[in-house]
């Protein structure tokens, strides 16, 4: 009469076998697991368990926008000068570039020229020949987005160059990048590498400005004053022409090497860059060429002869490490905007190992205590619930492995809690059976009623806890999300094991022992 549906038996057997298969790799050592195929891997451990470094970076998208406006100002200046249109009040303020075209007759032509510089701009006429140039909202958004994408790529290249094991670099939200570096104990070098935009440009020194004028702050609008990082160099600052002769984006390779026994960085341009560099050095022989990195002059050597091969060296006062880092940065390319570290979490490998040990002990101890408690209270029925609970644990571990979820220390806490909460379903069922039996039902009928009547309660209780877990996953961050994941999977598994699996076990037991009553009283 109370037969077990065949599909349930098959489902339980298949789930058990799959569960054991997928959970099994978790007891292997790392070396053994590495030999297993890709689909059969142990659960991946969070950085708090395996040790490593987590960095949350933010791309300064405002910087990109400011750069954009500055270059727009320069382009307007160049165009208007070339066309001999008189102007004043040229400058960028907030999100707007303004320029006043003085001759009324030039205004229409000037407006047209400015508009053509960048199709993403909108021009607005204000009073008396004053034009306000703005980027369209859509263009601003698009450029910010592309700056973040580009940053992601550059960060990836820089970290790849360092050869860390299995780094993970992901975008988060609108302008953030999450970098996870398993096994990295000290992220200081990585942070310092990511902290540089590494924008390299070659400019001519402006020799028309004497030191007196610099002191008075009289710098022509086409030049700028940049600090020098040359140690022992004569000048603290250099007056550098704003015009970029060649940019670092045209570099194809860069290496740290030695010249006269000192560490230097050698570089090579692509064909176009090589030609530009050749032209610039030929036309300006005898002048000084400033090598500018991130708005600082690394060195400003005199151009003795045209450099036509498309390659050269940068010699500053580098240490070997600095030369290597600079070469790496130049190879990987410049960041479109500076990055800021918002959050850093680093866990040493020994603390991770301690946490794994602590988590394992707590889980096993929790399991043993629950198992003993259930047997002490319910005897064989308790033992059957314990079998189901163990299967729950196996399925939880298997689903974590299959889903590629990350196990964290709070995640282990979730597993331990699941142990305590999952048997609640069994307790509800057994207590119900006891009551039904007292009300005069036969063994099978009481058993069935116990499962049927407790199910609604079990379901409601699960839904409420799952709701809390889901919100925790949505709003939690980092390791705490791991807690939400294990709690959720554990509770879902318990709906299956505590209800369906236990029921099958109880029926088999009753039939096997030919019980007339359930030993609950």
């Amino acid at each position, binding site marked *: 009469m109370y037969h077990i549906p065949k599909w349930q038996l098959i489902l339980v057997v298949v789930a058990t076998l799959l569960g054991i298969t997928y959970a099994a790799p978790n007891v292997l050592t790392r070396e053994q697991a590495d030999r297993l195929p890709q689909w059969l891997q142990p659960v991946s451990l969070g950085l708090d368990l395996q040790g490593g470094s987590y960095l949350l970076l933010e791309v300064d998208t405002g910087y990109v926008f400011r750069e954009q406006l500055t270059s727009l100002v320069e382009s307007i200046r160049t165009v208007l000068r070339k066309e001999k249109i008189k102007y004043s009040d040229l400058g960028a303020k907030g999100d707007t570039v303004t320029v006043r075209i003085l001759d009324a007759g030039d205004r229409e032509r000037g407006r047209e020229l400015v508009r053509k510089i960048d199709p993403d701009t909108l021009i607005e006429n204000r009073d008396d020949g004053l034009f306000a140039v703005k980027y369209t909202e859509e263009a601003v958004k698009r450029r910010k987005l592309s700056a973040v994408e580009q940053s992601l790529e550059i960060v990836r290249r820089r970290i790849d160059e360092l050869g860390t094991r299995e780094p993970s670099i992901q975008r988060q939200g609108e302008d953030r990048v999450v970098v996870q570096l398993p096994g990295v104990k000290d992220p200081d070098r990585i942070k310092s590498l990511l902290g540089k935009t590494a924008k390299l440009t070659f400019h001519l020194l402006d020799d028309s400005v004497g030191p007196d004028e610099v002191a008075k702050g009289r710098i022509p609008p086409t030049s700028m004053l940049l600090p020098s990082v040359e140690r022992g160099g004569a000048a603290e600052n250099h007056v550098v022409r704003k015009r970029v002769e060649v940019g670092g984006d045209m570099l194809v390779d860069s290496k740290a090497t030695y010249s006269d026994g000192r560490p230097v960085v050698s570089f090579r341009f692509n064909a176009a860059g090589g030609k530009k560099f050749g032209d610039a050095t030929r036309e300006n022989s005898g002048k000084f060429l400033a090598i500018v990195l991130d708005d600082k002059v690394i060195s400003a050597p005199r151009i003795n002869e045209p450099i036509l091969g498309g390659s050269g060296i940068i010699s500053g006062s580098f240490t070997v490490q600095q030369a290597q880092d600079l070469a790496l940065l130049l190879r990987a390319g410049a960041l479109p905007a500076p990055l800021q570290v918002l959050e850093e979490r680093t866990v*040493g490998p020994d603390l991770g190992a301690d*946490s794994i040990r602590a988590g394992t002990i707590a889980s096993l101890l929790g399991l043993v205590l629950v198992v003993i408690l259930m047997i002490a*209270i319910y005897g064989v029925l308790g033992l059957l619930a314990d079998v189901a609970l163990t299967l729950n644990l196996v399925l939880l571990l298997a689903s974590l492995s299959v889903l590629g979820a990350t196990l964290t220390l709070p995640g282990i806490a979730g597993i331990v809690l699941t142990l*305590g909460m999952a048997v609640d379903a069994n307790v509800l069922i057994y207590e119900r059976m006891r009551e039904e039996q007292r009300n005069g039902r036969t063994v099978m009928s009481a058993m069935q009623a116990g499962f049927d009547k407790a199910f609604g309660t079990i379901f409601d*209780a699960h839904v409420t806890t799952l*709701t809390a877990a889901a919100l925790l996953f949505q709003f939690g961050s980092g390791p705490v999300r791991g807690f939400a994941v294990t709690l959720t999977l554990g509770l879902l598994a318990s709906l299956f094991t505590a209800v369906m699996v236990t029921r099958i076990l109880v029926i088999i037991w009753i039939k096997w022992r030919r019980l007339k009553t359930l030993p609950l009283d």
Partner: protein
Amino acid sequence: MRLIERLLPHNTKYDFIRYRLVAFGITAFLIIGSFVSIAVKGFNFGIDFAGGILVEAQSTSGPADLHAMRTTLGGLNLGEVSLQEFGTTGRDIMIRVQRQEGAEKAQMDALAKVKDALGSGYSYRRVEIVGPKVGGELVRDGVLAVVLSLAAIAFYVWFRFEWQFGIGALVSTFHDVITTFGLFSITGLEFNLTTVAAILTIAGYSVNDTVVEYDRVRENLRKYKSMSLYDLLNLAVNETLARTILTVSTVFVTVLALLFFGGEVLRGFSIAMLWGLIIGTYSSIYVAMPMLVYFNLRTGKDKAEEEGEGGATQAAP
């Protein structure tokens, strides 16, 4: 099985509801006390929320000289620096540095200073830096998660039962959440991300407990048409008492395992869970259930019977 009879109280006839006014008094005291402590004393926020630096350093040679470290780090001008020894070897020191004025970069510079000052005699087992921006966001997300989960739980209970049950579940869960906040405020235990996880788990567990009892109330309402609400609620608590005790016990032992063997990182979490277990069980029996006495759960002719039992209009405790 005689053991069951001995360990689990079955067929009890305790009058839980009778002590409702005492219970409401205790509940009100706990809630008000928590609010007062939160308002006056506030929280000992961990760096997750307050921002700042946390360094777990281990001396590589013998026990760490806490006094010397305090002097060295105190002289760095980094504001409040707290040092705490933990573990059994005397080599492990937890260093907390308050959030530095200024932007994210200031935090990084401060860490470099700390590492420089400590020199090479220490290895760093854990380093965490949270800048002001992220700290603010984590606070916002934590508050949002707690508020939304309370709302979602109340909504679900309302949907599955009646609105009166929804209010009962909301009040008792709110009580558990607030008093857990209160516990952290009064004891000065560090309040961090895992605390939020504990609070949400407590909310889930407590409402789980409440739902089990409400389920029984609903069933009994159908079964015993003429029983007074007072007796009916008592019956439901007594009928589920064995289950309540057993489930609390199983969760309790697992939390104890976490508390004693889960390590430093999970300590605050385990303490919160332990508290939540006790307070959650209390609130299901003494807050969620007696509240129903004041609601009109029966309609039609049943109403008359219930009038004699403590009033039919809603009244908040």
